[in-house]
């Protein structure tokens, strides 16, 4: 035991302790929620009600319900009333079906000032449940940094002060794992939730959820990235959450029909073993498999989403990233995940920052990291991407927001809205890796221009207009945020359906509600507004369901079963949808079908929309997209793909572009595209049961069974 760990151990000061008998899990539920008030150091057990299970199911549904009851329309993200809720969902924790170990987090976001949710792997969620808790609800604020320990083996929860350094998440995860484990092998029974110093200094703080890797002998990290949940965590003076549970078995979730789960699991595991190497190679490359095709199809974000490809993209191609992953072995973030998409670069030596010259293990890079930190900033250097990825993770910065923030700053710099005097000497041109890395350190450490960058794109637009004379209209056009959240890393200009998939998403433009680019733009499977609207109803509802259950989306469509070749709606992967219905029934003993599955999601999805309304958002104006997400803002962008745009003007808009100035063509294209986006919104709202302002109708809420008086009261004000 190192001196440091010994010091940590002897410094532990218990501020509050709660003893309990861990609830037995019954059909996927513990039936209890752990409530912690950090202000008063109060720890309680709450019952999970029948209504919660029937209406909200679990995971994100539970999080939204608890948050709704905790806050008022006036609550701000940094008020003590705000909560962070972590809930895994009823299916989470089974070990026989891939992708069944996710946790869902819900809070009020410092970026959007409304409800945020995030889905994350790692062992914390399942261990929390098997320690007797369907959810962890944290409210209040401590006055000094505290750690919450949940000992599921001994039925003990404590709030403690511990002498530790919360600035580097990868070290903190290691140290707390070491502190809690009795032996090396025991480390797999520990999971830590933590963040780094970047979460204290920015609004884009994320949370790392650990899972101990016995082969590498390090605590690996998965990220709850979006929306500043790590910022809320540090604002509450939480340094870490630690759970310990050592009794994991295939029966821990105590399902109604274990044989059905085993059957379904064996079937898909066989598929993965048979087809993954010739399909998406998730086991070999993970999500970085998307880098090359995205560039080939002009969909990789380049230079703040101006373009979709770049001549230097080979520098961070799928194969280049693959060549950097070490121990090329399947790598899962939860037990039994045969799709095993996690990747790591071991013994990486950073060239900059506090870990310069030291060997570290980097989790990733995944597609979003390489596209956001790399191509979108015009940087095509794999070493830079890996180092930036490492520092974002250990500082606790969301890589997606950070990438979009730096790309936006670079475009402002190139347009003379910013200069070196403002940035403190950083020449933030596209492609300047050195300056971008320094900006990440500044964000992580709360220094210099990093303090401005850490405010996020929405607030920077205001600052750049008010303080540096930027044109507000131009900043609005190129600032890639909606609802206050930065866009994730796909170029959506040529897919109207994806434009809606992004900007209509409840929490802001994250692709986890709908990813329709190929279906729409390349395969042309959604040629009409009605087809796009149907897709923008079905997929967000279907994908919401993963968040109710504690499931990972990837084993749904990153492996394709043979039956898909003759399936009616192959894009839905019907065989896998049936697997999920079967799994839910096998765990809970209920008897839902594919329709009820969508209705489960619809209840929660519409409840979240109403929650946005309650917080002062959630209407049509908040579903507007920056024009950069819809079409070419600048003449340079138009001219880079002139043939394509001229052809569209001629064939789709009915305007002959010959003899027109580029400026006039940009304007004509803009009018056309914005008109189509508005039409799309109309059709989608109708399909979703909302009025023309995006408000769910009372009839729709009644049909869904969520017409509670407090919900109706919120909605009525908007009808």
């Amino acid at each position, binding site marked *: 035991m190192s001196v440091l760990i010994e010091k940590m151990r002897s410094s532990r000061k218990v501020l509050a302790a709660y003893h309990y008998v861990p609830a037995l899990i019954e059909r996927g539920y513990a039936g209890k929620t752990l409530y912690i008030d950090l202000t008063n150091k109060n720890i309680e057990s709450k019952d999970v009600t029948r209504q919660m299970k029937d209406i909200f199911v679990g995971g994100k549904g539970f999080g939204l319900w608890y948050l709704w009851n905790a806050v008022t329309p006036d609550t701000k993200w940094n008020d003590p009333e705000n909560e962070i809720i972590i809930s895994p969902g009823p299916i989470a924790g089974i070990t026989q079906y891939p992708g069944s170990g996710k946790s869902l987090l819900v809070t009020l976001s410092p970026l959007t000032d409304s409800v945020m949710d995030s889905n994350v792997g790692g062992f914390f969620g399942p261990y929390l449940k098997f320690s007797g808790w369907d959810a962890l609800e944290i409210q209040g604020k401590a006055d000094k940094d505290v750690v919450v320990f949940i000992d599921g083996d001994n039925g003990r929860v404590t709030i403690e002060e511990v002498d530790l350094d919360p600035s580097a998440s990868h070290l903190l995860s290691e140290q707390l794992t070491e502190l809690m484990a009795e032996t090396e092998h025991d480390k797999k029974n520990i999971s830590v939730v933590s963040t780094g110093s970047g979460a204290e200094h920015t609004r884009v703080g994320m949370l790392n959820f650990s899972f101990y890797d016995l082969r590498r002998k390090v605590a690996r990290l998965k990220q709850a990235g979006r929306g500043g949940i790590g910022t809320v965590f540090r604002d509450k003076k939480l340094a870490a959450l630690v759970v310990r549970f050592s009794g994991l078995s295939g029966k821990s979730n105590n399902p109604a029909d274990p044989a059905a789960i085993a059957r379904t699991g064996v079937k898909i595991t066989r598929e993965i073993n048979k087809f993954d190497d*010739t*399909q*998406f190679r998730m086991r070999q490359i993970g*999500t970085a498999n*998307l880098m090359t*095709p995205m560039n*080939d*199809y002009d969909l990789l974000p380049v230079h703040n989403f101006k373009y979709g490809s770049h001549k230097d993209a080979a520098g961070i191609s799928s194969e280049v990233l693959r060549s950097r992953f070490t121990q090329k072995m399947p790598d899962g973030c939860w037990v039994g995940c045969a799709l095993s998409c996690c990747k790591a670069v071991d013994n990486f030596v950073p060239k900059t920052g506090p870990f310069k010259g030291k060997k570290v293990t980097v989790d990733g890079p995944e*597609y*979003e990291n390489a596209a956001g930190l790399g191509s979108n900033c015009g940087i095509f250097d794999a070493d830079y991407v890996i180092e930036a990825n490492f520092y974002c993770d250990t500082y606790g910065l969301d890589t997606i927001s950070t990438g979009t923030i730096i790309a936006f700053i670079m475009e402002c710099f190139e347009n003379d809205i910013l200069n070196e005097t403002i940035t403190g000497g950083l020449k933030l041109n596209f492609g300047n890796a050195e300056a971008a890395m320094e900006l990440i350190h500044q964000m992580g450490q709360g220094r210099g221009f990093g303090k401005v960058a850490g405010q996020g794109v929405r607030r920077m637009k205001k600052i750049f207009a008010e303080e540096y004379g930027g044109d507000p209209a131009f900043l609005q056009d190129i600032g890639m945020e909606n609802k206050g959240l930065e866009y*994730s890393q*796909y170029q959506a200009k040529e897919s109207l359906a994806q434009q809606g998939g992004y900007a209509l998403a409840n929490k802001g433009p994250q*692709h*986890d509600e709908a*990813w329709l*680019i*190929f279906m729409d733009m*390349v*395969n*042309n*499977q959604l*040629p009409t507004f009605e087809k796009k609207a149907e897709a923008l109803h079905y997929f967000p509802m279907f994908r919401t369901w993963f968040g109710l259950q504690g499931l990972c989306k*990837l084993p749904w*469509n*990153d492996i*394709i079963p043979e039956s898909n*070749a003759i399936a009616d709606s*192959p894009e839905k992967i019907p065989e896998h949808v049936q697997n999920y219905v079967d799994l839910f029934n096998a765990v809970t003993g209920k008897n839902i079908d594919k329709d009820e599955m969508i209705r489960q999601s619809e209840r929660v999805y519409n409840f979240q929309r109403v929650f946005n309304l309650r917080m002062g958002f959630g209407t049509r104006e908040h579903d507007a997209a920056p024009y950069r997400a819809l079409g070419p803002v600048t003449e340079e962008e138009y001219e880079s793909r002139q043939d394509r745009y001229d052809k569209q003007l001629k064939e789709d808009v009915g305007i002959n572009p010959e003899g027109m100035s580029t400026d006039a063509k940009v304007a004509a294209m803009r009018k056309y595209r914005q008109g189509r986006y508005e039409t799309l919104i109309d059709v989608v709202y109708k399909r979703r049961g909302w009025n023309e302002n995006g408000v769910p109708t009372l009839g729709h809420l009644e049909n869904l069974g969520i017409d509670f008086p407090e919900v109706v009261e919120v909605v009525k004000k908007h009808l």
Partner: protein
Amino acid sequence: MVIMVNGKQIEWEENLTIKSLLKKMNYTFPKIVVRVNGKVVEQKKWAEFKVPDQAEVQAHHLIAGG
């Protein structure tokens, strides 16, 4: 002398194979299911399969994405 590929009108040419059509469309993704007039054509036959004039071609990319 045209064919429809994923709903878009494309000039047909003599001896147009699936392989050359995908090249022409810049469809480089390795996992594409091609149907010609509703019938799946296996990848191993792409180099010799001649796409007839007036054909309706679907080239569905099996890409899962984010």
